């Protein structure tokens, strides 16, 4: 029973990782950019979700505003930040992204204050008991959202012409243009979708913890970097599995080896061990 419950908790945690990490892996897959500022959009969405919900009393409106805004901001970031430095060495975009993320964190603090925001009355907190396991509605929704969204995405990326086209722009944007794939449009689209996913994750996490802080993106930002590597950079399905696996390992790890390694260290120990055995990640880099 405890094991099942730990497993489920791991899946819930892993689902939030997955939704963030998949956006990141898509973007990485597309541009070979470790887009740390992705976590800034996650935070932005959480703030918007809470603010709008508190203001207008509608969570759905909050989600819509948060995803659309984050998606658009994501596209703007691509356009203004990454596009001009795409053909520079990878660390350039990485550092730019980190700088941007620091600035975003600070902006959130200056705009929304340092204390964090909460829902004035948090939605989706009603408890459902399934086989003796207490779950909040928001937890169940997190897992379902994850599976549905990512399932669709993985299918698009791996199996459809559009997906193959996306991936072609990764290898050689100039040539893909020569075969009728507009790399710019693909990038806008991927940034929009990826950022919107981060936004969904942001609102979900806000529901789960009822707390939105300027620094809430920090842990996801680097943990999802680890995850996308484990999942085989650019591989949507691999990222999903890696996220869930990590969630579950963390859940058990916190309980059984928590006094040897803390949660974040468990994630990275797992990562380092896997990469030592298999330098290309758990799954094929798509």
């Amino acid at each position, binding site marked *: 029973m405890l094991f099942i419950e*730990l497993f489920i908790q791991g899946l819930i*945690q892993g689902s939030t990782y997955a939704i963030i990490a998949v956006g990141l892996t898509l973007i990485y897959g597309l541009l070979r950019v470790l887009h740390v500022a992705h976590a800034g959009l996650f935070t932005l969405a959480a703030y918007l979700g809470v603010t709008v919900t508190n203001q207008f009393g509608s969570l759905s409106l909050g989600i819509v505003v948060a995803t659309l805004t984050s998606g658009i901001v994501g596209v703007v970031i691509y356009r203004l930040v990454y596009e001009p430095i795409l053909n520079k060495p990878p660390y350039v975009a990485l550092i730019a992204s980190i700088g941007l993320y620091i600035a975003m964190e600070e902006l959130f603090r200056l705009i929304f204050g*340092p204390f964090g925001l909460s829902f004035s009355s948090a939605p989706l907190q009603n*408890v459902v008991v399934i086989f003796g396991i207490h779950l909040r509605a928001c937890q169940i929704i997190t897992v379902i959202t994850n599976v549905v969204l990512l399932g669709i995405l993985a299918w698009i990326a791996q199996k459809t012409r559009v997906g193959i086209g996306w991936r072609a722009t990764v290898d050689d944007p100039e040539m893909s243009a020569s075969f009728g794939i507009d790399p710019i449009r693909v990038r806008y689209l991927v940034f929009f979708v990826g950022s919107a996913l981060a936004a969904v994750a942001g609102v979900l*996490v806000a529901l789960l*913890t009822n707390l939105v802080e300027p620094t809430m993106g920090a842990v996801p930002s680097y943990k999802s970097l680890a995850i996308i590597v484990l999942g085989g950079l650019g591989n949507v399905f691999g990222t999903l599995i890696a996220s869930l696996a990590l969630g579950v390992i963390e859940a058990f790890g916190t309980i059984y080896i*928590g006094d040897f390694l803390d*949660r974040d260290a468990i994630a990275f120990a797992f990562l380092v061990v896997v990469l030592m055995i298999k330098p290309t990640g758990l799954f094929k880099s798509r």
Partner: protein
Amino acid sequence: DDTIKIGLHVPLTGFAASDGKSSTFGAELAVKQINEAGGVLDKKLELVIYDDQANPSQSIPVANKLIGQDRVVVGVSGSYSGPTRSAAGVFQEAQIPYLSAYAIHPDITRAGNYVFRTSFLGEVQGRAGAKLIGEIMDKKRVIMITLKNDFGKSLAAGFKEKAADFGITIVNEYEYSMKDRQFGAIVAKVKADNPEAIYASGYYFTAGPLISELRASGVNAPVIGQEGYDGSKFIEIAGKAAEGVIITTSLDRDSKVPETANYIAEFEKLAGYPADMVSASVHTAVKIAAQAMENAKSTDPVKIRDAISRISMKASTGTIEFNALGEVQKNVQNQIVRDGKWHHHSVIDDPELLAPPEK
């Protein structure tokens, strides 16, 4: 010069910025009150505030700047243990009195005789927690959920030290890190452990989500926290789940003591949100510094130091007196959440239990 400068370092940016903000308000309130009452030694008191990002390497140049450039006569830390501990060494070396408002690292006062602390040591509060659970509440099977930083660790140490004395069996201890906000795994295990009470260290931003999750998963055992929870934000985050949570702290919301009651009222007026422990501690520290100067009738650091060591003063967080090490001994205020507000629960005044180390 017609002002006397007090130096304050706080985390204005970075992960601890919220406490930095409260600290700043607490200090500003103290200065405002003092200046309105005529200042110190007929001069106005002036605050010099710098950001240390709660980072131990940042606080060293900050301390040196306060001492060397701004020539403050007293330093106050409104920051966490790391930066406070490294700044303490600098103040000690420069022989400028230094008051740590709420940092709990045991070695801070060991930096030397110029360093004082106006709040409890983590251990002391942990011991009080043991008494609260084992004796006052009479719960014996306890689970500990410990925040993995200096604060949580020293609380846990104090708690464990006295647990047996109050008949408490510690069934299990789980640790989490400062950055955790989701506690599903721990909660699942706690549920399986089925304790009578839960001693959980943390800050409002970890405790809020933790306690919501505990309650949602059907764990109904009472939760005992500490001053890290203190503040309205905790209740805002945890909502209904916060009801009945008890903490050990130094600020009694229902206090009839004028210093405290007055502080609580004035703070909310100034800051726009209810008072918390952090701000009260910094408020206390600044008041002590001012009082010490009055007592010493001088701004000479040596004299101020002596005055601080001899001080006995009622402040917002209780009556402050320092022992030989520079630690304070005062009563622990237990507060409980009722109807979405902090209220008086009980007081622990057992001098032996609360005795800070002398060396």
